């Protein structure tokens, strides 16, 4: 093997070893918080807004998320389009769904410096190889959310953060729409029973290319709408492959029960990909009728909220 080949092989092994360590440590954050070994970060002092009549949506970003404050420009643009279409819509978009304590990657963490460094590189060179570590961290948290052992603790933490932000936005027991992209869909179905218990309100999940499991939380959702691009194959299929509860053979799984009871609807939304320039938030690519992908995504969701 050539010198370069050997180094590349070593780098490849190192990457997987690091990924395994990240995956192994992923339940620790939620469990340490649950066990009371670690205090959650202090809640930000934000004065509650006046009670609002408008519908409420919570946006849960995909596994590339970094913090509650950081959303990509495309996601921000999409949310703006959605708010323009639904007058009075209150959007909570600053909950970091990949932490049980809403602790961003640049928050109070042991590896804070590493995450900040990776984020700096990511902003300089988008889609660089170091992005993968952030994604691996967040995939780990998605797996924690879907795990029957860790899920209840993790999801209750995220639900608490979402409920707090909704109350600050002037929530008054209206319907809540959890708009989730990619891995955020798993967090949405996972936190649903806890959020419903806290807020006692109707709860809808709207997924854009969602990767989610047969989480029992699906039972607490009033309806799940799943929009999927016809060129978005890999990620949603991965959810199906990894979670046998989604297979038709698992007749009594929560997922199959929800499917049979008509709680779930699927809709194809054009030749959209999971990531890249042709994704659900793209303001560059458009459908044959001239509608931008982001515009279509916003329109589909707005139509559901305004029914």
């Amino acid at each position, binding site marked *: 093997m050539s010198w370069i080949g050997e180094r590349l092989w070593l780098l490849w092994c190192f990457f997987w070893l690091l990924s395994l360590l990240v995956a192994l440590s992923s339940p620790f954050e939620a469990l340490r918080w649950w*066990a*009371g070994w670690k205090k959650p970060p202090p809640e930000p002092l934000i004065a509650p807004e006046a009670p609002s009549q408008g519908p409420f949506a919570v946006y849960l970003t995909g596994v590339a998320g970094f913090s509650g404050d950081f959303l990509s420009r495309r996601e921000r643009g999409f949310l703006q389009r959605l708010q323009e279409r639904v007058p009075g819509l209150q959007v909570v978009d600053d909950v970091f769904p990949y932490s049980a304590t809403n602790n961003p990657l640049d928050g109070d963490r042991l590896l804070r410096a590493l995450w900040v460094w990776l984020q700096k590189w990511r902003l300089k060179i988008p889609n660089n190889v170091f992005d993968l570590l952030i994604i691996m961290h967040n995939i780990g948290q998605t*797996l924690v959310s879907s*795990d029957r*052992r860790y899920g209840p603790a993790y999801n209750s933490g995220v639900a608490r953060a979402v409920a707090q932000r909704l109350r600050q936005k002037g929530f008054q027991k209206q319907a809540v729409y959890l708009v989730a992209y990619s891995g955020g869909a798993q967090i949405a179905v996972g936190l649903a029973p806890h959020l419903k218990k806290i807020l006692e309100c109707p709860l809808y999940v709207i997924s854009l290319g969602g990767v989610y499991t047969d989480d029992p939380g699906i039972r607490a959702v009033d309806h799940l709408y799943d929009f999927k691009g016809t060129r978005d194959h890999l990620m949603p299929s991965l959810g199906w492959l990894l979670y046998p509860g989604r297979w038709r053979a698992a007749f009594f799984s929560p997922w199959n029960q929800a499917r049979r009871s008509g709680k779930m609807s699927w809709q194809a939304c054009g030749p959209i990909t999971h990531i890249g320039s042709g994704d659900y938030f793209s303001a560059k690519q458009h459908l044959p009728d001239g509608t931008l992908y982001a515009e279509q995504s916003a329109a589909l969701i707005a139509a559901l909220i305004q029914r």
Partner: protein
Amino acid sequence: MSLLLIFWEPLVALGILAAAGLSDLLGQSAVLLLNQVSPRRFLLCLSGGALLFVASALTWALGLFLLAWLFGLQLGLARCLYLVAYAHLPQLAGVLVFLPHFGAYLFHLIRAWVFFDLVVAVGWTTGCSLPMAIVCALPGWALHFNLTHLGWARGPWRRLMGQA
């Protein structure tokens, strides 16, 4: 030193069992954290649990010896201990049970692997048939992994954890 040379084989066997027990408990330690045990109680439970694991494996070895004797197989007590200990080698990866999602499957896979390790070892050592080896290994295995299943948190575990 000479004692070590004489007893190296039982010591290695017990060492494997203790390491396997510790790894298994670390893998299952989520249960402890979910039960909101203190860090001190967590460490106590891990060390106590490893000892309990070894004791439970020794019971398995004893059960294997008694059943082998009952069926007329040529298997001494010391040999039973070694077979049970070496069958636990896959259990050294028990810490991976901590992995989210995949860990739940690994938990069952490793337990099944340990069982089949022992079945093959008994069959190979004594030359008995496969059903006979299964009959000899099964009761002890069921007892051993029932006792060391943290999720069920019964009896000694509940006492170790303090609360559940």
